[in-house]
């Protein structure tokens, strides 16, 4: 008797949890950074009106976490944002599926060099729709500076000891150090130099930030003089949240990246997912997003052309033409990634001492 009750309760529980899963069947699930375009309420309302589909979100704080979420939750997500530096890895692991640009009417405006960027290809097939690009650099609190700095070495300036915000990310950290030491950001040759640069940050760093919202809160409460940041997020913090910040493109260059939207393998609602990706590359969405909220640079030329003069991103594009190098984040070998993870883990341990 007892035994049956036990089994029944397990069966009941299993039935209950399946029922909760089914209740959300007509919702597409997007995996992205928080506040990164796909979760703007006004746009989702319009999308629901136009297509009848609702959108739910799941967020990640690093590309590593994004990949692990895909690995451990197969058949869950419909759309995932993949930095093109990771697209090949995700494709190789069988996490995302090949796409055909013909399924996306608005892809006709995409810049050809971005739309068929080699980083988005694996085995000759396209695995991501080019969506946005921008640069990783740093932003300053204008109240803490008399003049805009123009060198990446400002991050190591003792005048800002204990006032630097840094993102806790192995690859990004190593790439900053590679840039500061004039090395290839995707395959640095001298890790001792990188380690030395990262260790030298110890007195500088106030704390790590993990998300855009966190960044805004720390900036607002005056924790940082300067902090590493992404160009699109800086646009948002400045326009949307009215923070007194300025995005800096140092003369040494910045880390450029291209973000694509992909369909996970076994996406439960592939058609709705494709509609949503097309919605995202539509110039109409982009122009409203960039002017009202703030965004990185669209991969869609038509969209960028419609931006008003003096827009953050138009200025940024001009500024980027003046820097020494603009290396794009690209695919890395497993050995490079593991080396970077190890260097960063070791550096973080050094920070504790």
């Amino acid at each position, binding site marked *: 008797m*007892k*035994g049956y009750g036990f089994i029944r309760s397990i069966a009941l529980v299993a039935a209950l949890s399946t029922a909760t899963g089914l209740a959300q069947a007509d919702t597409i699930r997007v995996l992205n950074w928080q506040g990164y375009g796909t979760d703007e309420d006004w746009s989702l309302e319009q999308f629901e009106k136009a297509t009848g589909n609702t959108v739910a979100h799941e967020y990640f704080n690093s590309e590593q*976490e994004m990949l692990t979420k895909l690995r451990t939750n197969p058949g869950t997500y419909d759309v995932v944002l993949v930095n093109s530096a990771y697209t090949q890895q995700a494709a190789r692991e069988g996490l995302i599926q090949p796409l055909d640009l013909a399924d996306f009417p608005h892809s006709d405006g995409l810049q050809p060099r971005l739309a068929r960027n080699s980083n988005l290809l694996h085995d000759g097939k396209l695995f991501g729709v080019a969506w946005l690009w921008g640069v990783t650099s740093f932003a300053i609190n204008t109240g803490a500076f008399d003049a805009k700095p123009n060198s990446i070495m400002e991050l190591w300036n003792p005048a800002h000891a204990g006032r630097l915000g840094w993102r806790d990310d192995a690859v990004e950290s190593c790439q900053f150090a590679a840039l500061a030491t004039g090395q290839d950001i995707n395959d640095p040759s001298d890790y001792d130099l990188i380690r030395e640069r990262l260790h030298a940050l110890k007195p500088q760093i106030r704390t790590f930030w993990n998300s855009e919202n966190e960044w805004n809160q720390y900036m607002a*409460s005056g924790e940082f003089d300067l902090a590493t940041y992404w160009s699109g997020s800086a646009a948002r913090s400045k326009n949307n949240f009215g923070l007194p910040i300025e995005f800096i493109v140092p003369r040494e260059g910045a880390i450029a990246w291209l973000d694509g939207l992909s369909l996970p393998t076994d996406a439960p609602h592939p058609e709705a997912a494709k509609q949503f990706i097309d919605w995202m590359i539509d110039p109409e969405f982009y122009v409203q997003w960039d002017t009202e909220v703030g965004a990185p640079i669209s991969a869609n030329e038509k969209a960028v052309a419609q931006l008003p003069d003096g827009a953050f991103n138009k200025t940024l594009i001009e500024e980027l033409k003046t820097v020494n190098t603009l290396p794009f984040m690209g695919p890395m070998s497993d050995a490079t990634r593991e080396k970077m993870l190890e260097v960063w883990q070791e550096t973080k341990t050094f920070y504790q001492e």
Partner: protein
Amino acid sequence: MAVSDTKRSPTRRRQPSNAKSILGLTGPAYLWLIVTILLPLAAMFYFSFLSDVPLPGRDWQVTLSNYAAFFQEDFYRTLMLRSLRLGFEVALWCFLIGFPCAYVLAKTIKGRWREALFLMVIIPFWSNALIRVFSWTMVLRGNGILESLLDWLIPGFGSLRLMFTYEAVVIGLVHSYLPYMILTCYISLSTIDDDLIDAARSMGASRLTVLRRIILPLSMPGIVAGAVLIFVPVIGSFMEPRILGGREGTFLGTVIEDQFTSVFNWPLGAALSFILLACVLIIFAIFQPILRRAS
């Protein structure tokens, strides 16, 4: 925390052992524990000897490299020592703050007040630990309540810079685990006969002597039980350092969490977990005699 002690009621009439009933009554509970505790730990032990997660499409073989990594890379040991130090420090602070508090509750306050105050001390213990840690970010943050208050009391006080430090993690953890220490010390202290203390005092022993020779030794089981109950979860903590520690918030617990949620190196995470577990077991073994008295 003892489960019913059979030896204490020798008068109770025993029935002949009834295997069927015993199995029927205890079987479900223990089957449950096997599925949810024993098998997962066994699976994790197995994983800790693999080179990759054994899923279709992944290459893996049996290896010792995950354990070797711990002994080869200096930083794992540094982090382990750091986690152990955190555990000791938090337990020590809980003792320094909690023991006097338990003493006051057990020995100087009587009647209804004691019950009410006691309840007040353990209420936080039952409220969500995560929320309590979160609440410290409200207190400690720059331009937050604490800094505004200090600035108001002492004009020009400036910034405390407590948020995102090792100290912030200690404060948050002491706040989380203090009620454990108060609870266990209180139970020990309340078993000490007041007459014993009065007798010692009347025979000319100073307060300090009474504390040193009578109260502390007799309450030792409670102190040790409290310390162990605090130490064990603290060395495995990851949420508190993540929220309060900032740059100084890297511990073995956060590295283990990373292996599972972000890096997807489950075998390494499993090996580090077992090394941590070994530390816990050693601690238990050392204090086992005192713990047994405590229960």
